[in-house]
């Protein structure tokens, strides 16, 4: 009898397959796109165009602790040390084209969506210019209002329609609307299972070791429109659900003492260091603001709904939503504390952090700390500072626990 695979095994297989297929496609002369991580991949999937995601690749390079070489390369060409390190790694890779973390094919065109930041516009402009390739831009206006305004939806929809024409021109193929409908359905389904899986961490103890979210994130980025992706996240959600039913916590060798949220992207070069400090203190990161960005759910064949969904990720929403979102996570996941990553690469996330922290603190009373780091630049993080901040958080959380116990 064939033994069924775990989601973890499947995850690695799918990632390998994703990169192999893209490299293979390039070799056989098929089109390859580079895309930002929360772009409407539905259009590319419908056209059967292979895509790789520079953010994923840069994160992988960071996690393999080999980002510095690429960063040095781009900085030597005039890229400022203050720019996003994903961009600096990726632009360095465009020149070096070889990494132990795995290789990606060079793009034939660029697919860019600024719902994650405006920095990607500049970064991708530069790729398009350097490689003399076309660029498709989805400009999703920042939402200063709580909800996505109707005229933004109309504008985004107009860009969707425009992108179809651009894709037909670039690929020389007709856009298949029936296939599109199907891909929309799969994408929403996958996103639902992704959300379902991450929601399982609400159980106490959490069946999910939250750092796994960071591992699975690479796959929600690149597999959202594929059946294999859907199956993976369904399997993962089921595994976690069963684990929760059995009351199994995140670790076999340690107990979940505190439950925290992580705001922002991981420090990829120090993934295991940052994790170990938490585990040592019995802290499980049960949720994060970032992974929910891929919960892009809408009705199939509803372009307006799709436009709204893509513009509704927290990075593109106003500060009030940002605070409400975290307050809800505090309640839903029974959090004891919050860790804010002040990520040198990500001004859009950072420059709202102080006020969000104050608002959340006022409304929930739970303790939080901010530490300085970076998503891939190894120079911007200090383990000593991180440990000190986490220690402070533990003390505050412990104090709160005592106060609670005294009241009860």
């Amino acid at each position, binding site marked *: 009898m064939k033994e069924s695979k775990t989601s973890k095994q499947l995850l690695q297989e799918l990632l390998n397959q994703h990169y192999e297929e893209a490299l293979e496609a390039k070799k056989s002369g098929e089109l390859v796109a580079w895309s930002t991580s929360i772009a409407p991949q539905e259009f590319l999937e419908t056209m059967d165009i292979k895509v790789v995601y520079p953010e994923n690749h840069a994160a992988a390079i960071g996690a393999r602790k080999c980002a510095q070489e690429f960063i040095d390369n*781009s900085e030597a*060409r*005039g*890229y*400022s040390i*203050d*720019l*996003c390190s994903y*961009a600096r790694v990726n632009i360095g890779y465009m020149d070096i084209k070889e990494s132990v973390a795995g290789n990606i094919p060079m793009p034939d065109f660029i697919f860019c969506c*600024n719902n994650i*930041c*405006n*920095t990607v*516009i*500049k*970064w991708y*402009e*530069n790729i*398009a*210019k*350097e490689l003399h390739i*076309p*660029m498709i*831009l*989805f*400009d999703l*206006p*920042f939402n*200063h209002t709580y909800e996505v305004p109707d*005229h*933004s939806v*109309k*504008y985004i*929809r*107009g*860009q969707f*329609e*425009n992108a179809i024409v651009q894709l037909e021109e670039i690929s020389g193929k007709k856009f298949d609307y029936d296939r599109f409908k199907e891909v929309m359905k799969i994408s929403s389904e996958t996103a639902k299972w992704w959300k379902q899986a991450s929601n399982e961490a609400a159980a106490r103890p959490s069946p999910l070791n939250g750092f796994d979210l960071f591992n699975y994130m690479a796959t929600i980025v690149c597999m959202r429109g594929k059946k294999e992706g859907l199956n993976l996240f369904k399997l993962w959600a089921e595994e976690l659900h069963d684990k929760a039913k059995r009351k199994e916590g995140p670790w076999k060798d340690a107990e979940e003492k505190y439950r925290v949220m992580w705001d922002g992207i991981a420090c990829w070069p120090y993934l295991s260091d940052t994790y170990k400090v938490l585990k040592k203190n019995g802290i499980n990161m049960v949720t994060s603001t970032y992974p929910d960005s891929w919960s892009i759910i809408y009705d199939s064949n509803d372009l307006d709904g799709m436009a709204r969904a893509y513009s509704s990720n927290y990075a593109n929403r*106003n*500060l009030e939503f940002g605070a409400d979102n975290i307050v809800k996570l505090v309640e839903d996941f029974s959090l004891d504390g919050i860790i804010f990553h*002040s990520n*040198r690469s990500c*001004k*859009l996330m*950072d*420059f*709202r*952090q*102080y*006020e969000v922290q104050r*608002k959340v603190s006022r409304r929930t009373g739970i303790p939080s700390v901010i530490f300085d780091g970076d998503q891939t630049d190894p120079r911007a993080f200090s383990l000593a500072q991180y440990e000190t901040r986490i220690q402070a958080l533990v003390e505050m959380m412990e104090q709160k626990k005592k106060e609670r116990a005294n009241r009860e």
Partner: protein
Amino acid sequence: MNRIEEIIAIMEDVSRYPAKAIRESMEETGKEVIGCFPLYTPEEIVYAAGMIPVGLWGGQKEIKKADKYLQSFCCSIMKENMEHGMEGSYEFLSAIIIPAYCDTLKCVCENWKAAVPDIPLIAMVYPQNRKITAGVEYLVNEYKRVKDELEKISGKKITEKELEESIDLYEEYRKTMSQFVAIASKYPRTIDAKKRHSIIKAAYFTDKKWYIPLIKELTTELNMLPEEAFNGIKVIATGILAEPEVLLDTLVQNNITFAADDLAHESRQFRTGVSNSGTPLERLALRIAGNQKCALLYDEEKTRGQLLLDLVKEYKADGVVVFMMKFCDPEEFDYPIYKKELEAAKIPMLYLEIEQKMDSVEQIRTRIQSFKEMLTV
């Protein structure tokens, strides 16, 4: 003091004491004032509403309060604006407009709501896909929203005629400024880098109806003089803005002048005119659609390098001075691309990393001197 000197002195005074100039404008005209954050805001709509738009491009305050909202690695103009807002130095404003051109502006706009609750905020977004129909429509809708907000503040409707008149006035401003900078380049001693900066900057703090005739007069007066011989170095300035002013002093001391500029604070404001067709708001939206070569506006062809090369050629400039506003992502991303193009064309370049308030400019002074020596050898 001749008339040229007089007008320059007036402009320098306005630039040096903006608050005083604004209060005087308010008293003379009886108009309310709306603060406009960088880079481009629909000043025409503000003016049509019977109010004076004033530019808020930072300052020189020591940052004490803005740190509560913004980390150290935030662009200094935005930190200064937050500081000024929190300190109360913008209290005479009836509202402010903050456009979300970059990630920092998006956040500053959000923080403003909490940090400076007393000054009403009009948040807006300029589309990046601004040339396609959907983008133009979106911008027209944003303008309508801004117009509605302004009408609420002023308590009266803005008519089509008022909008048309305001657009005409701003077109006149843009033409006047384009003529001024073209003529000024022939008089590098009378209009040195610092004076040029002050004259252009004064427009941000005054009623255009007051400002335009003075600049026209200045241009006419200059044009009557013989062209000035100049044995110094002529450069094209590029970046967000050319401050702090001590840098301009250093440039002047080293006999370096601006033949032309590609500064967001200066020529980028007036080098593109409005479209002649459509409703007033469409004409304004099409102006943005036609606006190219600005780091804050999507340009997949990255034509800025070519613009700088063209300016160097047209003005027979000796080189390019980059005023790199530290922590400005869009400008920092453009740099490696145009740097390569300028280097390929063997155009000398001076890169100055700046913040609005700098503790020490000694290093920059040395760099300016070396640049001069390199070019005079």
